[in-house]
């Protein structure tokens, strides 16, 4: 057992924390809300090799482990950075498998191709709302028996949809995304897509964990500062105890996220179940924390001027990109409890 980050990971954390703090300021986050994507931030990430850092070195990537990617996603989440990082990293992982994806993967590394991934398989030619699709050049999707890369014909525009968390959402349908490149077929396609969605769960859980940590910090700082009835509101036990419960759940969420990443890297049979657990618990804890933190701001928390509302919206939005949590819970139950009847 070793619950500390490696020295390399600590260094990585330091550098990406600085990057996101500078490049994803609250002003930049607000400015990017309508589009859901900050192109300047994206260019910096490309220069740092982040979009392909999880791809094997022999394929031109950074050879990072999932545990390393989690370190980056936590820092991106902490600043609610306006790029769909978990989707980009997941799409890059899908392009890195088959030879057919090589050119596109190179484009992702160079910054000429912005990819995203449709988490739900296409049904009747549509994958529903997909984060990143309003700005992406390509969408990796599972369409029946085929894992495909969808793109648009020249001149075909995509219609951005207004959304809760500023995530560049657009409907992905084969009518608009009419060009397709097949990456894999049959079982191989299904397995690759399922595995990629599992990776997305871990990375999104990590982003939510970073968001949670910052939402808690914002709330704790505020209650220490704000006075009511002649004392800082941090003095009240109802405030303290709710924050203590959230901090406790938060330690659990942090551990679960790292455990899910470790399980993937180690090839554990529990990896898929832990990825679902991490997403569900990190999402629930992040939203509870952001909601409490907003509440402790009183009326100011309800105004757009304070940053906590940025966290409140994304705490819910990021997890729901996959769909309703009840399906995740049912799938988790199947992962955990399917077996011989007692």
């Amino acid at each position, binding site marked *: 057992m070793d619950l500390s980050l490696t020295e390399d990971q600590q260094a990585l954390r330091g550098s990406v924390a600085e990057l996101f703090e500078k490049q994803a300021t609250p002003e930049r986050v607000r400015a990017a809300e309508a589009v859901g994507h900050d192109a300047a931030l994206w260019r910096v990430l490309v220069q740092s090799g982040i979009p392909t850092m999880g791809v094997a070195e022999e394929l031109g990537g950074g050879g990072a482990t999932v545990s390393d990617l989690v370190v980056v996603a936590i820092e991106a989440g902490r600043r609610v950075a306006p790029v769909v990082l978990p989707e980009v990293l997941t799409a890059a992982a899908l392009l890195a498998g088959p030879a057919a994806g090589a050119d596109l993967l190179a484009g992702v590394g160079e910054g000429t191709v912005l990819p995203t991934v449709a988490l739900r398989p296409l049904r009747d030619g549509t994958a529903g709302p997909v984060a990143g699709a309003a700005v992406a050049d390509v969408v990796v999707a599972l369409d029946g028996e085929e894992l495909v890369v969808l793109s648009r014909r020249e001149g075909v525009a995509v219609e951005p949809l207004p959304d809760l968390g500023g995530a560049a959402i657009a409907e992905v349908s084969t009518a608009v995304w009419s060009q397709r490149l097949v990456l894999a077929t049959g079982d191989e396609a299904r397995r690759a897509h399922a595995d990629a969605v599992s990776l997305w769960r871990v990375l999104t859980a990590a982003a939510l964990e970073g968001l949670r940590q910052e939402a808690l910090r914002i709330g704790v700082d505020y209650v220490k500062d704000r006075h009511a009835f002649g004392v800082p509101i941090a003095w009240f036990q109802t405030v303290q105890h709710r924050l203590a419960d959230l901090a406790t759940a938060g330690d659990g969420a942090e551990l679960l996220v790292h455990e899910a990443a470790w399980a993937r890297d180690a090839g554990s049979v529990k990896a898929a179940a832990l990825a679902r*657990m991490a997403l569900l618990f990190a999402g629930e804890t992040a939203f509870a924390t952001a909601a409490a933190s907003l509440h402790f701001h009183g009326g100011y928390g309800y105004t757009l001027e304070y940053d906590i509302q940025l966290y409140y919206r994304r705490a819910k939005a990021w997890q729901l990109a996959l769909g309703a949590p009840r399906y995740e819970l049912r799938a988790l139950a*199947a992962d955990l409890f399917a077996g011989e009847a007692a």
Partner: protein
Amino acid sequence: MDFTEHDSLAEFRKAATAWADEHVDPAWVDLEHTTGTHHNPELHALLGAQGLLGAGWPAQYGGTDVDPAYALAVFQEIGARGLRMDGWVTTEMVARTILHVATEEAKQEIVPAALRGEVVIVLGYTEPGSGSDVAAAKMRAVRDGDEWVVNGSKMFTSTAHMATHVFLLTRTNTEVSKHKGLTLLLARLDDPGVEVQPVHTLGGQRTNATFYSDVRVPDTLRIGDVDGGWGVMRVALVHERGTATAPGGPTLVEQVAAWARSAPGADGAPLLDDPTVAEQLARLAIDEEVGRLLGLKVRWVASTGGMPGIEGSMQKLHSSEAEQRRVDVLTDLLGEQALLAGDAGPLHGAVEWALRKAPVSTIYGGSSEVMREIVAERRLGLPRSRPIG
């Protein structure tokens, strides 16, 4: 990070199982359930006689050459067979405190006998009027020559009806602030002034109320300085926990899930086929995994030489609150089957029993309110909210 947990006691498991097969009488488990006493004198005496209680202790105080890892594996195996050793848990805690703070005379008189299994010590901190606020103890001790004369009462003195000594938190000075007038005394329970009355609990455990009238304690069994009791309590409350985990059987959630695979619901189909049932069990499994990880963090901090005070509070807070959420959900999930106790119910009444014993988890060993206070002040840096007194 690496979440692999190696069983540090792996090499001793087989021998521990063999020891339990030879010595543990399965009837003791039923006896524990019927009496509600979490201490078996026969077992305790045997562990003492075989040197298992003294494993790892200094030889000059009765320590034996039994490997402490083997002894711990035996204790865990005893626990896995459904027997609790509360008498040893409290005796060990006090004996360690004695080694830290008592006089040489007291160490020689108590510790070797405790390790032989002849002295069993229970805790006398809580009183009818004070629990979480432990320093508010009112029990009076007055000096009379070489002795102390003790008057007062203690609550929840579990195992007192089976023990030889009680570790009493007494007030020896009423002229100073409440933390400064406390002294710890080790009183004999066979003193004619001691009265032990049983108190029965919701979870089936028998505990006691104990009453003390003019009970005499020699000054040689004063543990720590006069009026220095709060410092002794701080030693006593930081009792070391083993860093090895016992081999885990299936959790209650896993047992219920396995049962729900075939047990029919109201529509006749297996309960687990009901998506709402599956969702609830999955949620509980997440809660359990989070609790396991928080426990892992406590052991990790301890293994790196740190003091896992905050982490321990978080783990205690989460696991006890999660236990109460869990029994609420599981009893509802079982419906009318959850009403049935013992062998009449599914899983030998485990869920019915779980509901009855759950309330104590957020009360003893530091209430949830105390745990939240520790997290709020020490992790989040929030100001102390309760009055200082």
